[in-house]
């Protein structure tokens, strides 16, 4: 208990005055979920792009900068939040200058999402209630309908992906049972004939894919476009809302 309190105290003392900068789009989403504009040194320009950023309109209240080493040093940033895309040499260079770099790994399930949500909440001293919403997400009755999500570049999520978990939590059975993201191809999808096909709708490939004449003739799938900014980055709010969108599609 004492250790836990000490750990929390350390976190609070370290980060209460922290000037946090984001290094990439997904780090933007985490900061937009938990941090106030005053705590954030800057977000990246992609945070305002509605096609990829879930919180694009909220991002307009924050400062925007390109996240290069020179900017980070000149802005006296104390913490940099990044995801796996950060170059290791850049990370070392920043750490050498005394900047704390927090790297969020690829999130594959709800537990990992909860873990990181708690951690970022502590760092930002946020009062957000999104963690409660995350904890209340539960699986409905056993899935009766099948679904497939076609993401960017035509690939679909299988097991050990957050999108797969969202599909299951929304009450569907994902027809892609392979591990990780995998490209399925029109022929495989047609023969498996899912009840629902959720697609980002953005991007030529996906559009051409679901508009292929073979789909019309063979499948009875309901094709639902879903904004791709729900699934580009793992972040608590977009995950909760994504499940809601999937459930609504079912209705």
């Amino acid at each position, binding site marked *: 208990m004492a250790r836990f309190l000490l750990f929390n105290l350390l976190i609070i003392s370290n980060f209460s005055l922290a000037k946090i900068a984001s290094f990439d789009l997904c780090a933007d989403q985490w900061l937009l979920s938990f941090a106030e504009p005053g705590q954030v040194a800057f977000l990246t320009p992609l945070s305002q792009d509605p096609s990829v950023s879930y919180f694009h309109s909220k991002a307009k209240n924050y400062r925007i900068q390109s996240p290069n080493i020179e900017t980070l040093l000149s802005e006296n940033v104390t913490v940099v939040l990044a995801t796996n895309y950060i170059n290791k040499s850049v990370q070392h260079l920043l750490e050498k200058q005394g900047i704390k770099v927090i790297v969020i790994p690829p999130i594959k399930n709800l537990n990992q999402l909860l873990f990181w949500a708690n951690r970022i909440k502590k760092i930002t001293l946020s009062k957000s209630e999104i963690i409660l919403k995350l904890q209340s997400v539960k699986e409905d009755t056993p899935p009766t309908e099948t679904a497939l999500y076609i993401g960017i570049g035509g690939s679909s999520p299988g097991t050990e992906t957050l999108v797969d978990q969202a599909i299951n939590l929304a009450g569907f059975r994902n027809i892609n049972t392979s591990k990780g993201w995998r490209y399925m191809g029109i022929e495989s999808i*047609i023969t498996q004939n899912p009840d629902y096909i959720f697609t980002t709708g953005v991007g030529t490939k996906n559009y051409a894919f679901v508009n292929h004449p073979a789909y019309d003739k063979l499948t009875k799938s309901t094709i639902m476009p879903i904004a791709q900014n729900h699934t580009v980055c793992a972040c608590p709010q977009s995950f909760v809302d994504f499940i809601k969108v999937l459930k609504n599609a079912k209705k």
Partner: protein
Amino acid sequence: MQKNKYQKSIFILFSMMFVCFIGSLLIGKVNIFPSLFDSKSNEMAFIILSEIRLPRTLLALLVGASLGLSGAILQGFLRNPLAESGIVGISSGAALGSVLCISLGVSAHFSFLIPLFGMAGATITAGFLYIILKKYFNVYTVILVGIAINSLASSLTSVILNISKNPYSALEIIFWLLGSLEGRTMDHVILCLPFIIVGWGILWHTRQGLDALSLGEETAQSLGYSVKNTYQKIIVGVALCIGASVAVSGIIGFVGLVVPHILRLWVGQKPSNLLVPSMLGGGIIVLSSDIITRLPLWDTELKLGVVTSLIGAPFFIHLIFKYRKKYAGI
């Protein structure tokens, strides 16, 4: 004797192409062969065959034949063993047009704009070449201006990639540039077919001029063939068939370069004798590469341009070493 050998080679190539054609219809991620004879599931098999596999098989044939024919014509006309449609910049021009369409975002809602933009890119490039070389024509200028236009179009494509704000649109551009026939429909075939057929027709008419040119420019002119006229026909023909091909498939490398070299060893050096075999050879290579892309050996579908280059490059090196004595200076 020579005629017999030519006919025999055409027959063999045609048979190989036919086998690849059937293979392309039957091989894929899903085994449709048993379903074809099962009355319960043959509707699905038939639709997969007619709506998915037939269009891409036809496109592979058209694109491969166009690449092979253009390579043979350009190598004969420019008397340069490295000539292919890429060297005159038309492929890059078509690619630039299509990439521009993807980056502007309009293709997300009207996917048919990609081939249309591609054809527009090829036409503008060909028009540019035509205007420049109308005034300052000779074979070396054709190669040099072609290389310059090719570099310019490639650089502009890189600029679009470089300034692309959305990483996913950049990803889509890169994938498109790697070449693929996946997801193409009969509409794509109908869109590119007229341009390709007219292009083939124009290129076919240059065959006697090419034979005459192989004896030297002066001899060709004394026989009544104008080098400039032949060139103008070639540029229009290549622009039509390669522009339309790149517009529907993306960039597919090495076919136009390798196929004429392989077949020259078989059917001889006479340029006109090389045209039909190169069309058939191009069709065989693109068809077989497309079959490889969809073999159920890999999790993802390989890109066609990647496979043609993987097959073409080592084979080309093999040819160079095997026949280096025939090619003086290599």
